[in-house]
């Protein structure tokens, strides 16, 4: 995708979200010093294992964090406004209208007691103050847009009358109902069957093209990244360890964790070859090792890795990597 000359749609700088215990004694750095940007019409993939902070990052962007979590540093410039400084009331006009989110489990995001029409029409009525009849007509159009057959009858039905794939498409319809600029999808296809997943990904791509949507895909699945994304941020223990164009990262990963992840996935073409496993476990975020969090599992770790945390190095090809090995090949980053 072409690089825009003007400012990115969303520009996250040095963002940190920590979970702080009531006495303030225990701090979990769920998101730690994260910087990312996304342009209009672009797709950013955020991959990481459970506990890497990718979902907390999404909740931070939408400012829907649980009470124990706090944004302790950084800024999120979205259309020239800092989302971090916005009041809760102001955020209410951003969520669902300018930034929308799709969650993993469509049954949990739909209310079983309301009709599909009511639920798709709700954001339109809330954000645009449209009358019910008008909003319902829009809801029917949206269902058509997400390829639900016979939308006229479907609007009057309830979520239990739909299949899993249809429900996820309805959640997608709610997501785009107010024509947001940015859509965050958190593992949107995990609960779907393969052929239904293919349908859904194709649908998201079409919607993106038609509406110039920026998409953030939060996933643990590198295959989704390979198929859908332009940019990729790899998270490990709350930090972005590598960030840059997808094809660059897949062709020549700069961080050993990225490289190990790519090597550990079975491929259709070279089956029955032994997989390269990553030894050990992902770390406990409340008791991180000193130095680089990946060092205890890293095949290339040396002395410095266990003592000092590597800063974000800017690589020549527009990538960033948090690894001492990357420092050799590039100039020092701003950090």
């Amino acid at each position, binding site marked *: 995708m072409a690089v825009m000359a003007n400012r990115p749609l969303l520009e996250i700088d040095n963002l940190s979200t920590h979970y702080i215990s009531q006495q303030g004694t225990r701090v979990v750095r769920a998101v730690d010093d994260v910087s990312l940007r996304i342009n209009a019409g672009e797709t950013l993939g955020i991959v990481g294992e459970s506990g890497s902070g990718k979902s907390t990052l999404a909740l931070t962007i939408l400012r829907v964090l649980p009470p124990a979590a706090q944004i302790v540093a950084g800024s999120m410039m979205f259309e020239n406004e800092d989302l971090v400084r916005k009041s809760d009331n102001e955020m209410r006009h951003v969520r669902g209208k300018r930034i929308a989110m799709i969650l993993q489990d469509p049954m949990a995001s739909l209310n079983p007691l309301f009709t599909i029409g009511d639920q798709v029409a709700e954001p339109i009525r809330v954000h645009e103050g449209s009358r019910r009849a008008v909003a319902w007509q829009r809801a029917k159009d949206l269902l058509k847009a997400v390829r639900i057959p016979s939308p006229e009858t479907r609007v009057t039905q309830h979520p239990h009358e739909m299949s899993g794939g249809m429900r996820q498409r309805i959640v997608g319809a709610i997501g785009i109902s107010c024509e947001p600029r940015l859509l965050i999808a958190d593992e949107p296809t995990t609960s779907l069957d393969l052929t239904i997943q293919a349908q859904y990904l194709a649908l998201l791509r079409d919607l993106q093209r038609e509406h110039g949507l920026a998409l953030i895909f939060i996933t643990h699945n590198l295959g989704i990244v390979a198929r859908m994304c332009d940019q990729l941020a790899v998270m490990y223990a709350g930090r972005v360890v590598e960030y840059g164009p997808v094809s660059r990262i897949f062709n020549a990963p700069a961080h050993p964790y990225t490289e190990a992840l790519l090597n550990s996935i079975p491929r259709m073409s070279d*089956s029955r070859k032994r997989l390269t496993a990553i030894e050990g476990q992902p770390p406990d975020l409340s008791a991180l090792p000193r130095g680089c969090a990946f060092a205890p599992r890293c095949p290339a770790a040396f002395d410095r890795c266990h003592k000092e945390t590597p800063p974000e190095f800017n690589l020549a090809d527009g990538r960033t990597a948090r690894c001492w090995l990357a420092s050799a090949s590039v100039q020092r980053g701003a950090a």
Partner: protein
Amino acid sequence: MMPVLEAAGLSKHFQARRGIFGGSRGVVRAVDDISFAIESGRTLGVVGESGCGKTTTAKLVLGLEEPTGGSIRFEGRDLHELDTAGQRYYRKSVQAVFQDPYASLSPRMRISDIIAEPLVTNEVVSASGVRKRVAELLDLVGLAERSADLFPHEFSGGQRQRIAIARALALSPKLIVLDEPVSALDVSIRAQILNLLRDLQDQLGLSYLFIAHDLAAVAHMSHTIVVMYLGKIVEMGDAQTLAQTPKHPYTEALFSAALPSHPDERREEIILPGEVPSPLNPPAGCRFHPRCPHAMSVCGQQEPALMQVEDRIVACHLYDRTQRDAATTAGIQFAERRSSRASVGSPS
């Protein structure tokens, strides 16, 4: 080589009822007349989407469901003809590892008790013998011996799955049913478990029935792959060639829907219309025909039989000789495209 396990014409039909007193609404043919064989020391992978019958097949093999038709032969003997000792031997020889290691291990039992439980209930072993065997098994799955005294909550997901594997190995089984054994695990841990399973197979000569929705993992682990759709086998063949050059249109769409392993990997993307129909009322003829991009008039009328096509077994009218002779252009083009199709290799 004699297969460890052989299923012939295996069926499991469920009666669907209306309410609790209501009469029958029809029959769900969860597994409908399928035949396959698992060779000794080899892995049979089963793929397909929800409702295709792969879990029911696993349950039938594990003896958790009674088949309504057909037979299963284990080491040449029909399960129905086994006496009590034979049944006990079968249950010892066929073990399972399930998806969620958080649900499959009792939180109140120590690891040593979890692993020893099958031994204690099935065999007469002395206390010291049990301890020795537990230590052996822990070593086999790559866990420290001191793990024996701990409880499941002290382990991560990957380690728990190792414990579940150790328990499955306790009775020295011949066949292990692996139902989504890595899908609940973190990405960086999956390769550890898949490698472990492969090592154990080589070391102990185990056979696996491997069920997973991750097609690349199935292709990686299996020697033979069975593709199921709505209770039927649509294609079966060598894992490598089937994954690279699928013959049945459903297999082709399924593998094209599998996510690429590299962004430069360009594949023909086949997006199937619609969804898997209800198994209560499957389409007439070929069950796949309403979604099939190559469907012909015969597909809606006549159910295709499984037939040998080159190195594969396929149930599809496109490969019907009579159909081809009848000059159905679509069929000929399709078959030609199949045979001339280059492999789908990734660039790396």
